[in-house]
């Protein structure tokens, strides 16, 4: 054992030092590692195993069925419906909330005295408990007695049963989803906007871009790129996981028109006890969110090194 002079960038460390560091490192990391295995890795492995069996809650024996669950899921009309509905929901929520929040952020960013007020107002929905708000929305949207329909009829339109009409349920839930997300995304966009240096705008103005739309297209939009990407992916993941409003307001109805993937997983696993099938559905759910989370994580990483 001898003190070794290594490259100039690192100070020489005697061997005991390394041991101490390794031990400390392992000691610090072990609780997290154990929990990681217990709450993430092991369950995922269990899911994978379960999905290849026919296990039901309370069953005494468990048999392997190969990929039968997967083919059943892909042909199951309820599951195809819930996947379709989930994608439809996401297709409405993501563009709407991203674009609306971008617009609001741009408008609010320029304000000085009223900025605080608008920040509060737009962010309030994010802090509310969605279920409490959902019951209020239910009443607001009541076909006969709710104020929204009262306004519609006074303007000469027909009454609309927002939550009972199969074709309207999902867009209505999407509107509520957007309602809760706009403030959150707005704050992210505001941070992104603040990071754009003012001189860039002045430079653009010198270059002849004096019209606000020009400035937006030349300076704001490109520099907001990473933020926009991040907001979009985050919104996508959040929207894909929709559950609360369905569980509380519509329970998948009417006629399955608001059945979404995560709610289908919940029903299969915790109400009908087809645990192996629910495990299969969870893996499908995970596959989709993984694609987007991986994208997000790589962008996260890139932005840190930006």
């Amino acid at each position, binding site marked *: 054992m001898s003190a070794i002079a290594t490259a100039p960038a690192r100070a020489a460390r005697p061997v005991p030092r*390394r041991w*101490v*560091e*390794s031990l400390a*490192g*392992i000691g*610090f*990391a072990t*609780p*997290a590692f154990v929990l*990681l295995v217990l709450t*993430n890795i092991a*369950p995922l492995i*269990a899911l994978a195993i*379960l999905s290849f069996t026919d296990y039901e809650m309370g069953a005494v024996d468990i048999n392997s069925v190969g990929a039968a669950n997967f083919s059943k899921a892909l042909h199951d009309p309820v599951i195809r419906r819930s996947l379709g509905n989930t994608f439809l929901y996401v297709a409405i929520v993501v563009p709407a909330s991203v674009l609306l929040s971008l617009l*609001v952020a741009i*408008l609010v960013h*320029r304000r000085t005295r*009223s900025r605080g007020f*608008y920040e*509060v107002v*737009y*962010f*309030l*929905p*994010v*802090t509310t*408990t*969605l*279920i*409490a*708000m959902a*019951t*209020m929305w*239910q*009443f*607001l949207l009541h076909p006969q*007695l709710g*104020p929204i329909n009262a306004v519609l009829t006074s303007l000469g339109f027909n009454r609309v049963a927002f939550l009972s009409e199969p074709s309207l349920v999902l867009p209505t839930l999407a509107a509520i989803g957007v*309602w809760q997300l706009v*403030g959150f995304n707005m*704050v*992210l966009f*505001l941070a*992104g906007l603040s990071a754009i240096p003012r001189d860039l705008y002045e430079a653009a103005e010198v270059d002849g871009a004096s019209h606000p739309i020009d400035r937006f297209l030349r300076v704001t939009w490109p520099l907001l790129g990473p933020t926009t990407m*991040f907001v979009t992916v985050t919104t996508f*993941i959040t929207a894909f*996981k929709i*559950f*609360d409003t369905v569980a*509380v307001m519509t329970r998948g109805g009417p006629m399955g028109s608001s059945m979404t993937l*995560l709610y289908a997983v*919940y029903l299969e*696993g915790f109400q009908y006890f087809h645990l192996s099938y629910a*495990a299969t559905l969870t893996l499908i*759910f*995970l596959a989709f*969110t993984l694609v987007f989370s*991986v994208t997000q994580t790589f962008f996260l990483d890139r932005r*840190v090194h930006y």
Partner: protein
Amino acid sequence: MKAITPRAATVRRLLALLLSHAVLMTGAVFMLLPLVFMAVTSIKPPAEVFEATFRLWPRTFYGLENFQAALKTAPLFHFLLNGVIVCGGILIVQLIVAIPCAYALAKLEFPGKPVLFALVVLGLCIPVQAPALPLYIAFAQLGVLNTYFSMMAPFFLSVFAVFLFRQFFKSYPDEIIHAARLDGVGEFEIVWRIVVPSAWPAIAAFSVFSIVAHWNDLYWPLIVVSDAKLATPPLGMMFFADSEVGSNYGALAAGAAIITAPLVLAFLLARRRFIAGITMTGIK
């Protein structure tokens, strides 16, 4: 470029300002609609709730009765207390577990470090609903369902916290740590006495993020809790709404107000912290 008269420029600016505020105010109305509605309905007597003409202030102030009815029907304050217990418990363990691990990943060398980091990054991509099913089965076998422990356990490790704090710790100056080591300060103390205080903004930001996320979580409590006494605010609201919908909308609105109030008030009081929390976890 055409020259614009000063007056035309001012008019254009004024119009732009008006337009901005008009758009923002319309959005603001949409944002506040259910909240205002909730506040207004909670003070109305049943007869006035379904009235054709909408009034902001009721003819008869019924707020006291509504709130009393709400509190009598369900233990709303108890739900809030459960929220505090569960979120607080989760946060404390999250910090205790994540901070040392993040420090180790940022500043120490040890065998298996790259593997651990890869697992952490992988964990970031797994939504909490994915392991729910096997965890439920495991908890059922262990007989710990319907306890505070089972409500908190799946969340004890926050890979997000590990990731976030690691970023922060990485930028902490090595010299200070070396100096402390030379002074004979143990690694454990270095973490908690020296590095952590400087990471306070990140810790505060993460705490906001964690509390908001778990306060409003419905999925896991719905599966694990069968005793109303353990219900967190969203679950409690679900029980409460089921019992009141169709009869007493004033009480329902009052109940919703009680459930929603804590986070809203916390936000109004600590607005900067909240927003910093969201932003920092987003940008970093």
